[in-house]
């Protein structure tokens, strides 16, 4: 791309060179459309006939889109429950203040309206800066891409989670991996007294590209994951090594564990949610109203941030989760366009001396 900058200078010198080398008999400049600045040009004309309808059309279109977005957003059924465990009466209060591993607490909630359609389950964190520069750069993409050299020799960027105190390489290294969200959830429907487990499907919750391109396990023929990862240690905050993240599904282990992938796809803003599971089984297309119990394996400390942890159940639509902002913004700017169109109409009507060609 730098050639763009070189080019004119080369041209400039070539005019000297051609003179020096006597390539041309005389000094007469070339007669081309470019050198004589006669290039044809075209410009979208900003005439009244275009500008006014443009404003009205944009206004109408935006109001239309806005209404559509608002309706879609309102149709999305969303249910959010916080489980940070801050208040005394919170179920998870003990777990939040007691740092024992795999502390369990339950959360009971009622869904008043039955939720139609497939439902996604998210976990949400607030005041959590996954976009912090030091945090964001504290990963080794080469290691995560499965390059064996970097498995044992993590990049400097992972510091201070590059090596453990015994100078063993950490896999996966870096702050992001180290802070992997490790709460686990189980959901039960309180079906007339007995608890019916709602099946949660954790497959294909990460991006296809992440699963197949960006992340992969180091390959070594004839050896299983634990052998491959031999010589590395698990990240300091982890309870399980990376090759043992999902005991139920051996393929969902190592760097391509879906929960891990979701976590590694860092959030843009400090308040975010991440997809945890899709509700499957009997409840995959319909969640009846009633009482539910969420069993939480409470591991992840957020008290110091201070942040909050939430679970969210939401139906899905083409626009993703529930968010009224865009719809309202469309409505506002659409109306503004409309108003502006009227103002312009008045202005144009008042000042008749309008030519049809711009400039």
């Amino acid at each position, binding site marked *: *791309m*730098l050639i*763009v*900058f070189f080019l*004119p*200078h080369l*041209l*400039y*010198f070539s005019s*000297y060179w051609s003179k020096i080398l006597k390539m041309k008999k005389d*000094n*007469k*400049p070339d007669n081309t459309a470019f050198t*004589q*600045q006669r290039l044809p*040009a*075209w*410009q*979208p004309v*900003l005439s*009244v006939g275009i*500008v006014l309808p443009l404003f009205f059309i944009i206004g109408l279109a935006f109001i239309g889109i806005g209404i559509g977005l608002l309706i879609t957003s309102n149709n999305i059924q969303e249910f959010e429950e916080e489980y940070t465990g801050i208040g005394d009466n919170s179920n998870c209060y003990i777990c939040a203040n007691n740092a024992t591993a795999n502390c369990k607490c339950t959360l009971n909630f009622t869904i008043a309206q039955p939720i139609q359609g497939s439902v996604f389950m*998210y976990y949400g964190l607030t005041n959590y*800066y996954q*976009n*912090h*520069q*030091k945090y*964001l750069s504290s990963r080794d*993409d080469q290691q*995560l*891409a499965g390059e064996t050299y970097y498995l044992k020799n993590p990049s400097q960027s992972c510091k*201070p989670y590059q090596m453990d105190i015994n100078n063993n390489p950490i896999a996966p290294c870096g702050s992001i991996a180290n802070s992997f969200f490790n709460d686990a959830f189980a959901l039960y429907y309180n079906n007339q007294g007995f608890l019916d487990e709602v099946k949660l499907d954790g497959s294909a919750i990460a*991006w296809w590209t*992440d699963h197949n*391109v*960006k992340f992969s396990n180091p390959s070594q023929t004839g050896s299983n994951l634990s052998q491959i990862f031999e010589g590395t240690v698990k990240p300091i905050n982890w309870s399980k090594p990376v090759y043992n993240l999902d005991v139920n599904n051996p393929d969902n282990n190592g760097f391509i564990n879906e929960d891990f992938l979701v976590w590694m*796809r*860092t959030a*843009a*803003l400090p308040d*975010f*949610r*991440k997809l945890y599971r899709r509700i499957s089984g009997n409840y995959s297309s319909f969640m009846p109203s009633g009482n539910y119990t969420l069993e939480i394996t409470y591991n992840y400390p957020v008290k110091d941030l201070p942040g909050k942890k939430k679970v969210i159940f939401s139906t899905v639509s*083409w*626009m*993703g*989760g529930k968010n009224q902002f*865009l719809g309202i*913004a*469309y409505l506002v*700017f659409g109306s503004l366009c409309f108003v502006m169109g009227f103002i*312009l109409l008045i*202005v144009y009507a008042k*000042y008749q*001396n*309008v*030519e049809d060609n*711009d*400039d």
Partner: protein
Amino acid sequence: MKTIVLWKGDCHNSAVLNLLALCSSALHIFTFTMYSAVKKYLPLPYFLYFCFIFKQMYDNTKVYHCTFISFFLQNNTIKTCKYNILTFLPLNLFEQFQRVANFYFLLIVILQSVPAISTLPWYTTMLPLLTVLFVRAAKDISDDLARRRSDKEINTRPCDILQGGSFKAEQWRHIHVGDIVRIRKDQIIPADLLLLASTEPHSLCYIETADIDGETNLKYRQALHCTHSRLQTEGQLSDFDGLVTCEEPNSLLHSFSGTLHWMGEQYPLSNDRILLRGFRLRNTHTCYGLVLFAGPDCKIMRNCGLFTVKKTQIEILLNRIVILVWRIAVLLELEILFESIEFIAATSRGDSSLYMGFLTFWGYIIILTEISQLIFSFEFIHVVHSLFIDWDLDMYFIEKDTPARARNTALNEQLGQIEFLFSDKTGTLTQNILTFKKCCVSGVIYGDNPCSNPTKEREDFSDQVLVDRLRSGEDRSLTEFFRVLAVCHTVMAEEVDGDLRYQAASPDEEALVTAARNFGFVFMSRTQDSVTVSELGKIRVYDLLAILDFSSQRRRMSVLVREPSGKIKLFCKGADIVIFERLETKCLYLDATEKALEEFAKDSLRTLCLASKNVPEEFYQSWSKEFLSATMAMQNKEAKLEAVYEKMEQELTLLGATAIEDKLQDGVPDTIHILKKGGIKIWMLTGDKQETAVNIGYSCKLLDNNMEILEVRCPRLLKVESEDTSDNFFQSLCVVCFFWKFQDEIFQQDSQIASCTKQVGILQHFVELASKCETVICCRVTPLQKANVVEAVKRQQKAITLAIGDGANDVNMIKRAHIGIGISGQEGLQAVQCSDFSLAQFRYLQRLLLVHGRWSYLRVCKFLNYFLFKTFSFSFVHIWFSFFNGFTSQPAYENWFITLYTVMYTSLPVLSMALLDQDVSCHASLKKPKLYWIGQEQQLFNLRVFAVTVLQALLTSLTLFFIPYGAFYNTAYDFQTFSVTVGTSAVFTRITYWTRFNVLAIALCLILYFIMTFILQSAHLYRVAPQDFSFPGAAYNAFSHPYVWLTILLTVVVSILPALIVRALNKALRSPDLHRVRQKALGNNLGGDACPLQGSLIQTITLSLIKGQFRITSSPNLQVLGHVEERLE
């Protein structure tokens, strides 16, 4: 050759001088110079120099002198190139890093190479910086090589130097102070010489000084009688053992003082013994001179100002803006720093928060420095604009095969902002060819039928009626008329190969005598006391009784002759006013002649009146005694002579008037007219006489008959009190400033501080008055004065100035003005060498300024606005983002996107706009010169425009960040999707600045953006280098969400809407007539020709003088030259 040249400053001790004079006969070759630089930088004690002298005394070979002493000797080498192999790198780098942007860049590169700070990879800045440095250096080398070549060409010109008893062919550079050189006819004088002898009688020697002061008439210099009589052979010359003491090298072209000590006597030397470097020897076979000043000490070289790097106003503004941006960035970053320290203190446990904050601070400096990219593009645009000038066929002069050349590629947009134009006269406005066009004899105008034979060349004077009448010999006054032309002059005739050639002191005279010859009155030859004329075939010899010489005060000349018949006659020619004053009371044809003169003046012809008178013998006898005593007078000779002349030139009989055309270069009046309409004030600075200058002023439409002329003979007198000096008055005023008389006290470039301050004061008053006037003509100015005037206008008026000239005398002015233009294709390339642009003809100036300059200005300004907009709106997003990422210097975009954003995604629209944009076609800008005002008023880029641009960028960046922020708040969309959304919106918002030339480019860039994004985020590249391409699939995933698209759509439309509204409103509210806008903006009418004063307005200006108060009332204007002769003395 046993000659010493001593400069007065070097040696004040007359005892030493005498000693040296005594010793001089013992010296064989000796030249002694200590020039000021050596003296300044090598504080050698005095005796050391004398050691050299005495060593030299005992040595007889020149070899010794060359090797040992030459360090202190000034030889004639000139050096205008800046670098040599060793100094190139440090000097050039030093120059380049003087540019704020380059320096800033360097700083960023250094910062980026520190891993703890680096937020972007080092190559994002390093490569562009290297490119810029390299390209610039290459250009500087090529420029310097060109200068070196021209230096070499000049230094190796041939000349003859006296060595060991005979002249040897050497080169200019071998000339040393004290050498004796021989100059042949038509050669250029190589150094400042003392004229020792010439082959002409009385050692006269004619020179042409056009290269030095622009005067084209021949001048003469005469050697001292003693050197003339005793130095006629080479042997005598080589035995010459004089000692010259003279002033130190200085820049005054018209003065010289020194003494020649020779043969035990002292002879004072003044300016008319000196031949300056750059003069051309004419009509003289050979002359011999002693070198007094050589090389850089020559007066003309002293008149060359120092080479300075020119910067355009916009570039200066840009530098200021870069510094401003830097300051704002630092402030912002400091704010962020404090926030970030707090944030880190709250979250981080390991690192010291202060250290982390420090690193963050520098990290932000790196990501907020996109503005530095500006510099490449700026450089690039300048180069292409220069190429357009080089390529322009309409500025290509076919006859001489010279295209226009932009020699300095950094000044283009300033061509669109010129407010003052300083022009040389000779060779720039005029061709310096004078032709006899018309005449009026006995009230009848001849030569007035150009239509009768259009086939003949225009310049030729032909009127069959006149020829017939002359032949018939009926009309006595007609015969008399041409007789005066043939006799009354100081022309020399010379026969070369049977062809009669005239050598005249002024081109006017030559034209007149040639005209007389064409009508059969052939001036044949002249002796000391006779003039031979062939009148229609009959040879008549007139005894020359007296020549009443021409002077600029008298403005007339007469000859007193005795006709072959024995009658004494006075033939007189001169300016009309002067002649009319001295006519006999009842003069025939006076009215008719006056009318004819008016007509001639309307055609911008130079007029002269001819008159004659019969002188009674007795009167002559008594007069000649007075004349003789006046010529012998020792004191007050000039005044006495003038009184005597006055006595003779009375009661004249009017014969008629002549009209001569001083041929202008093609298209000069049109060009001047158009440029004046474009609001450019044109000043003519010439070394020539006032009459000539004013005449040319009329013929090139610089002056017109509705203008009053305020003649200023002494700028000291000028201080205008503003009470009654409305703009209207000045619009029709032309100041003719006459520098000659007062040059010494006013413009002497002395090192004495006292005179300097005085000079500034006077110049200030002058410029204050003059810059209000429509036109200014400065006569008799030396090159240095020209430069001083330019400098004063530059400083006082804060205006952009342009100087155009062709000769060595314009070099200084060309260097000093914001833009210097050299007329190429003439002899003597100094002006072109020093110029920023070179044109083959003056008339190309209108295209250069009104088309190229205006476009350049427009494009550069649009470019700057666009660039600043796109950079700021892009960079501010980082700041908004920092509020949501803990004030860490996390870029909001992908690294590759940041790198390619300026270089690739947005460069094409920017460049196509900056290179090709035209608001109006070239024909329109030539047809409506008033469109030029946008540049003069700096309408398109100034601090206000900058502020608006920044505000717009701020709004856009807010939109760019906060709409996606709102849309993605508390959702599952990740950082990379967010980045892609914001980035894509940012690329789309570039549509805001569309013009007719970059629509295509914008479309191309959008396509390019998508292609590049998908390439850079492809799986393949990720597999090759995961570290460098860490966004695989981000765009793919993002663009598969309609929600992302809707966000982008809203962001883009909201960003563009304000610009669209402004454009639409502008369009509705703007008056279609740019002229009216202009008039409104200025509050008055600048078109000078729109409201001619017609002389009815009587204006008063009060000039407060040093001596007292003078009130000047301008009278209704007369028609011809010198309407209002307000002699302020």
